[in-house]
């Protein structure tokens, strides 16, 4: 790659990070307003990231060491690849779903490498919250049935001719939206880092490592919102997607502010129920259309 390409990639990464962190800060602010608290300023997520990045750190001696340090790096690797494959190259949807599944390895590895019982619980929960991926695959197959392609640029150009997919596939859009909700902080499906197990898999990743994980989370939030907007609304431009991102963050924070954290089995059962509904929709499309 030449220097122009590199410059563009760096800019894209910084853009995703800044927009993701501002949106997560806005999410926290709106949740606080719903719960009648003043709430932190919207740059709080960014300030937290900077604070953790420059903070003094001690590494627990119970940690399994190369894995313990490698996991935050893997988090950024996973979501940077998703960013480049989705936003830059507009490549296949299946690869991005595969990368989303890799995120589970990060959660599992973070939890189990730290040696903390809370982290271990978070890692174990992340394994059986893998039920969140079943609706995702159902969504992908439904989109394939309708548009005959899995390449994101093809899906976007299909929608420019036939109108947005959210009108044709409302159930799939809902399932994908539930995925966004479960990825956002303080969500009812967030059993992996729920406050009942201190911070889940993040419990013993503090200081610099927490800063790296926060950077990865901000990029992840940006990429997932962009995916939703590109697949179901047909807007692939990162500037035009910005108002929709703010709108979706608003809806997600209202949902997260009003619902309590579900128990693990309730969360899994709810996600499986949604998966069954989407699979029935898929079956109907395969048989009758």
């Amino acid at each position, binding site marked *: *790659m*030449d*220097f122009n*390409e*590199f410059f563009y*990639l760096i800019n894209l*990464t910084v853009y995703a990070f800044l927009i993701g962190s501002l949106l997560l800060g806005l999410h926290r602010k709106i949740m606080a307003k719903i719960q009648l608290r003043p709430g932190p300023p919207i740059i709080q997520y960014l300030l937290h990231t900077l604070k953790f*990045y*420059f*903070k*003094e*750190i*001690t*590494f*627990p*001696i*119970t940690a399994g*060491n*190369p894995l313990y*340090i490698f996991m*935050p*790096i893997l988090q*950024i*690797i996973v979501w*940077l*690849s998703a960013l*480049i494959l989705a936003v*830059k*190259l507009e490549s296949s949807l299946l690869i991005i779903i595969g990368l989303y599944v890799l995120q589970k390895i990060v959660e599992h590895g973070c939890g189990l490498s730290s040696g*903390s019982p809370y982290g271990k619980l978070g890692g174990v929960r992340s394994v059986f919250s893998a039920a969140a991926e079943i609706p995702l695959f159902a969504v992908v197959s439904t989109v394939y049935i309708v548009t005959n392609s899995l390449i994101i640029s093809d899906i976007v150009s299909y929608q420019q001719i036939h109108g947005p997919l959210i009108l044709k596939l409302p159930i799939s859009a809902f399932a994908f939206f539930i995925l966004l909700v479960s990825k956002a902080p303080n969500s009812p499906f967030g059993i992996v880092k729920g406050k009942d197990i201190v911070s889940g898999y993040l419990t*013993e990743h503090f*200081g*610099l490592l927490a*800063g*790296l994980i926060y*950077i990865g989370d901000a990029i992840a939030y940006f990429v997932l919102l962009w995916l939703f907007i590109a697949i179901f609304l047909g807007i692939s431009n990162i500037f035009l997607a910005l108002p929709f991102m703010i709108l979706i963050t608003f809806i997600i924070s209202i949902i997260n502010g009003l619902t309590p954290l579900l128990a693990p089995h309730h969360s899994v059962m709810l996600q499986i129920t949604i998966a069954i509904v989407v699979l029935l929709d898929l079956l109907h499309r395969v048989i009758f259309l």
Partner: protein
Amino acid sequence: MDIEKKVGIVCLIIGMLSFILMFITNGLISYLFYILFVPNILYGVGIFIVPKTRRKKLGKIPFRGY
């Protein structure tokens, strides 16, 4: 030197190498080197600029039987 600093040096070396290889190669491979470059540099730089810990017993987190 503790193991975290050693990992930091390894990360810096990987980051530098992928920075060079990124400009030599073309296509998808160069994106791969970019993806390796960013987090490794972030960790490698970060581990050397964090202040030295003032904790007496290194790595012994409370509530773990110490």
